[in-house]
């Protein structure tokens, strides 16, 4: 196992933990994107560029848009509910 392989394995382990302990959903979405990049490097270093490409398009383009828009909608509805009750 090369130094690079050990380094990306550590990065993925740390990144996965960081996603779990992120304090709120918005930051969690951003940390998830960084974790996705770490996974991309993992696949690339372990010689699977096809999966690395899939991972980078899903974790940096596909998923964050949906998560961030869903969060925006949830905040919006919470705001409307507060206005209704006041």
């Amino acid at each position, binding site marked *: 196992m090369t130094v690079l392989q050990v380094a990306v394995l550590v990065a993925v382990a740390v990144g996965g933990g960081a996603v779990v302990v992120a304090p709120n959903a918005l930051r969690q979405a951003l940390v998830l994107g960084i974790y996705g990049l770490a996974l991309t490097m993992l696949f690339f270093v372990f010689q699977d560029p096809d999966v690395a*490409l899939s991972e980078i398009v899903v974790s940096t383009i596909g998923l964050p848009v949906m998560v961030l828009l869903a969060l925006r909608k949830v905040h919006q509805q919470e705001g409307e509910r507060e206005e*209704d009750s006041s």
Partner: protein
Amino acid sequence: MSRGVRLALFGVAGAGFAAVLVIGMTGLPDFGSYHGVYGQIIDGIGVTVRHGTDLITALNFDIRGFDTLGEEFILFASVLGIVLILRQLGGERHQPHQEESDEHHFAGASEALRALALALIPSVIAVGVYIVVHGQITPGGGFQGGVILAAAPLAMFIAGRYMRMRVLAPHLVIELGDVIGAAGYALVGLSGLVFVGIFFKNSLPLGIPGHLLSGGQMDVASVFVGLEVSGAFLVAWTHFLDQALLIRSGKQS
């Protein structure tokens, strides 16, 4: 259940799990060693018999093309689910989206970001098309290239111009892309059944390995999958964006 009981339960389950994990790990083959017969066969016939230099694409779109048909319809069905769940309900209403007024500007959409996002659109399209059509030669293929292609209209939204993104990628066009891509991939399989007698068996000329038009049906399948994936992602994103930007609950007017 009290905290003590829960911890005790976790202790027992955790210890058991750790034991099984350690026993399993000790039986693993050495790092980097590979003894899979199937993989070695594919490695041998990928270029010589199928004329595709990227064996992953050769597997996805030719040798195990039938599996990809199932995966493709998983994506199709999940996008249908998104459309169904995020539809406009009876109690909701459309709110006009004012992009020119300051208060509705997407946070952070400065002039510089807007110019950069718009300038990126042609190159994103070029990269997406490249990845789709070179699937059988280099890493990539319909799925990866399709998501990159879908990101081109999305750049318009990042530039703070969602209504123009809808002009660039209207509902009808992206839905048709999704449907034609899904149907086209199934037709690639049927063409094998019609012309060679076996579902998803290649019936097209194989070409010279490494050339753009090589690998027989891989290229055609890759283009259809690219169309389906970019359509599917755009349909899903558009419904998320409609919910976040346009649709409000109808209680207050």
